[in-house]
């Protein structure tokens, strides 16, 4: 390891260090030191986290702008990690999501009393793993980083320790193990065929190997590798047909954890899959079959997510199916990642995926965190429980409505703009039918999103007691809502950033 390696890893190291600091602080701020004012002292922890997140942010910004130290966008640590702007873009997204979740979950976490420190440090370790994952450019690193994110996430899901939560954790554990096994299998195929684990070397070796006509992806090992890798990451991205765990885990896990999983975990899986597969896209045979594979997955995910969401009565399950459908929309952009487009652009696919992911992150956090604030106070996780919310907490209700409309894709929110960009990319690649399927799906989605909007605004309340969320919760939700609107009205703000980040091409 040389200095450059440490600088490239500095945001990840900072995040992991913060997790360790918190664990120690939790032990030090023990009960006897504060004479029983345990919760008061624990609140100090949440401040340590939020302030501490400035460190990884600073290091990531430093790499982006190159203020101090050695920074490079070529692979470091023997080619296993790349701190290019693509990585940094997703690291910002993960840090932001972590901050928003932490900010909004402090009141919710009061119920955990004893395991608060664990909650924070597990969340941060998972975030550190994700930050590593998005930059991983070598197969073993990908695997290790993925496990680093998965294990804390499982513990987090089971943290509530009641029936649902334990079930969620167990289910998550088993399916996570299964998915990583599939992924490992796929990675092994790739290694066995090419004899390399570094992505850049794999590409070079593949170019020298024969591609047969008529075999999907040009050769059987590559086909198995791609299918198994996609299946492995399919669990993390929560796309159909690997979505079965999502509703159960989201329902059982603490709501902030579900919010975290739905945004950060999904984004990092999309990022690494994009990096891995994009490097294979130079091979024309791969690119063609890839388009079909992802178009089918996208169709399945959108349709399954939206149709099942229609019949849900539990809000957490509904949001889970909604995220499955949203992942399907992102997959539409993914299907268009590869082939050179009719407009001659090669970056349109990744650009649209990143724009959608960024917009989705803001919007989905707004909705999930608003719901966290509500469920913590009402304890009612049914859709009916949101009825007449506008009378109980007008501001929160309005923000949640804006979030839902953005998920639906109503202009002028980012949900609309992102869909415009993603679907146009699909049409650009000749996938007109996929764009039509996607658009029909948005209309189906209108039924359940608008039903909730209608309930929030016009429903009768059984319980007229006002809901008064704390400042932190409001700030986190407002951040999401403001992002959803700003990036929809002024899309070039974020598109500029994405253009700068598209270094994998």
């Amino acid at each position: 390891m040389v200095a450059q390696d440490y600088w490239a890893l500095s945001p990840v190291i900072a995040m992991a260090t913060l997790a360790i600091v918190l664990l120690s602080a939790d032990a030090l701020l023990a009960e006897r030191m504060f004479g029983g004012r345990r919760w008061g002292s624990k609140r100090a922890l949440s401040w340590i986290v939020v302030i501490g997140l400035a460190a990884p942010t600073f290091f990531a910004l430093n790499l982006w702008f190159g203020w101090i130290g050695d920074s490079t966008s070529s692979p470091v640590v023997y080619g296993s990690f790349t701190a290019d702007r693509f990585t940094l873009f997703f690291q910002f997204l993960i840090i932001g999501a972590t901050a928003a979740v932490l900010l909004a979950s402090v009141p919710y976490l009061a119920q955990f009393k004893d395991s608060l420190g664990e909650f924070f440090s597990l969340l941060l370790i998972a975030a550190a793993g994700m930050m590593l994952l998005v930059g991983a450019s070598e197969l073993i690193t990908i695997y290790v980083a993925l496990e680093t994110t998965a294990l804390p996430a499982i513990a987090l899901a089971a943290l509530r320790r009641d029936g649902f939560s334990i079930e969620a954790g167990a289910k998550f554990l088993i399916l996570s193990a299964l998915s990583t096994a599939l992924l490992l299998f796929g990675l092994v195929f790739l290694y066995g065929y090419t004899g390399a684990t570094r992505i850049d070397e794999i590409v070079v070796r593949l170019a020298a190997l024969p591609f047969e006509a008529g075999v999907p992806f040009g050769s059987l090992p590559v086909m198995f590798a791609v299918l198994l890798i996609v299946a492995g990451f399919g669990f993390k991205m929560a796309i159909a047909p690997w979505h079965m765990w999502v509703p159960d885990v989201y329902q059982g896990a603490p709501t902030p954890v579900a919010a975290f999983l739905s945004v950060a975990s999904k984004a990092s899986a999309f990022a690494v899959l994009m990096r891995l597969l994009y490097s294979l896209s130079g091979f024309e045979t791969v690119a063609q079959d890839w388009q079909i594979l992802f178009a089918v997955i996208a169709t399945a995910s959108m349709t399954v997510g939206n149709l099942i969401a229609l019949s849900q009565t539990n809000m957490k399950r509904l949001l889970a199916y909604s995220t499955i459908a949203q992942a399907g929309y992102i997959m539409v952009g993914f299907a268009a990642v590869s082939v050179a487009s009719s407009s001659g652009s090669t970056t349109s696919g990744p650009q649209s995926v990143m724009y959608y992911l960024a917009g989705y992150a803001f919007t989905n956090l707004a909705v999930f965190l608003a719901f966290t604030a509500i469920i913590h106070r009402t304890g009612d996780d049914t859709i009916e429980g949101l009825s007449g919310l506008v009378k109980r907490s007008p501001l929160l209700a309005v923000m949640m409505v804006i979030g839902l409309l953005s998920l639906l894709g109503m202009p002028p929110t980012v949900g609309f703009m992102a869909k415009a960009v993603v679907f146009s990319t699909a049409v650009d690649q000749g996938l007109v039918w996929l764009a039509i399927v996607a658009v029909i799906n948005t209309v189906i989605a209108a039924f359940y999103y608008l039903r909730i909007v209608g309930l929030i605004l016009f429903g009768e309340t059984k319980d007229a007691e006002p809901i008064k969320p704390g400042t932190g919760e409001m700030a986190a939700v407002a951040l999401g809502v403001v992002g959803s609107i700003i990036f929809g009205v002024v899309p070039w703000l974020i598109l500029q950033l994405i253009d700068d980040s598209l270094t994998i091409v």
Partner: protein
Amino acid sequence: MSEFNGILTVTVFLPALAALVILLARPLNLEDRVIRWFAILSTVAAFILSLVVFLAYDRVVGGVQFIDHLNWLSAETIKSSYLLGVDGLSAPLVLLTGILGLAAAFASRNIELRVSEYFVWLLLLESAVMGVFVSLDLLLFFVFFEFEVIPMFMLISVWGSGRPRYSAMKFVLFTLAGGAFMFVGIFAVYLTGAVDSLTMVPVPELGIVGIADQIAGVDLIAPASLIFAFFLVAFAVKLPVWPLHNWLPDAHTDAPTAVSVMLAGVLLKMAGYGMIRINIGFFQETNGFTVHDAAGILSVVAAVSVVYGAIVTIRQTDMKRLIAYSSVSHMGFVLLGLTAIGGNTAATQHGGINGAALQMFTHGTITGLAFLVVGMAYDRTHTRHIPHLGGLWRRMPVIGIFFFVAGFASLGLPALSGFVSEIMVFLNAFPVWPWAASISAFGVVLAAGYVLWMIQRTFFGSKPPEGGIPDDKFEELTDAEPLDLIPILALTIPIFVVGIWPKTIVDVFKIGIEGILR
């Protein structure tokens, strides 16, 4: 290159800005009266601006004027700019929006429920509609076209009567489904390879070539007929054209008066405008399929809309529902006028489209007025059920007079605006589609039937029939207040002006249509 005059941006966003002010002033707990008048004054300002735009539009120079241009979205696969401007087609419609926005705000003076929210949504609605008419960028057009759904949904759901939430949801789902088709159509047009900007019309000042020129003679990414159909469906839902009209009677019946005025007055016109701007504008020289090929089928649909709408209208017993169905019939004339595009001579094509555009303008004012006076009568009688009414003339002659004006204009009495536009449509559609035009002519006869019969049943006679309004209530009914005359006159004056001197509007439309026809 960039250009920014600002007047259109102000015209579009002034109502929205006023809405924002009302929203921000909520913690002050202002009196409802203050909010009401603030909102009304902002629509007056928007009306004045729209009038300025209409009058200052240089008829000699023509083309696109008052351009506001900024870069907006520049993804790899879709580039779009914030481009506002008016041409001869949109200038009168901007004025129409100004007029109806003003009338709707005045007509909302009696709203008591959640006043500030009501006006926020009403003003946002006006901004959205204004935005539709001045957007020259296709995606921006779509954004405004879709955004209008949100205020409508709220206005019908909260302040409506009958089954408001059912009707509001139906409206939203119909519109979104139609919009979804247009969404795909936009990409299909953009991604043909030849298209590098989403500007609907050529803007020489900025060096922008319109989409029509860019896709002329080029192989599109999908068959031109399919893309044409995508746009057509979106607008046919909105116009509405039989058999996609189903949402309209519900939405109209359950909406509050001012919202019905806006809905009939300007929202339906967005569809006719879109048909002219996009379906006709884009698809005249496309490969494999042009709008001329579709004219025959559309003329049949138009004739069915006109006659079916009129027949259904006759048997309605709810006054608002009656006027709503008459809209289906009248908007059928708009479509009929557009089918003159299939004609051989330029004069016929121009005349037919001009007639359709004029029909949009006149229908906006006439039906707006009809909903307005029906709303006033309903506020007083608390029933719209025709068999319960009668003899209203005796209690409310002023409302009655204007009800007559709206009714007669609607059935096409000469010297009122409805006559001019319908005659233009018929004269130009007849040589092209004699059968469809002849059948549609029955729509006018039926219109005389339902209008006169309704007036007879509600306003004539000495008092309401048995089982209707009780005598003591009837004797307490009052006529229009002086302030009610402002919205009424705002809509009546254009009916007379266009009826007597159609050149005021027709000549402006002509400039716009000449720019669109090739």
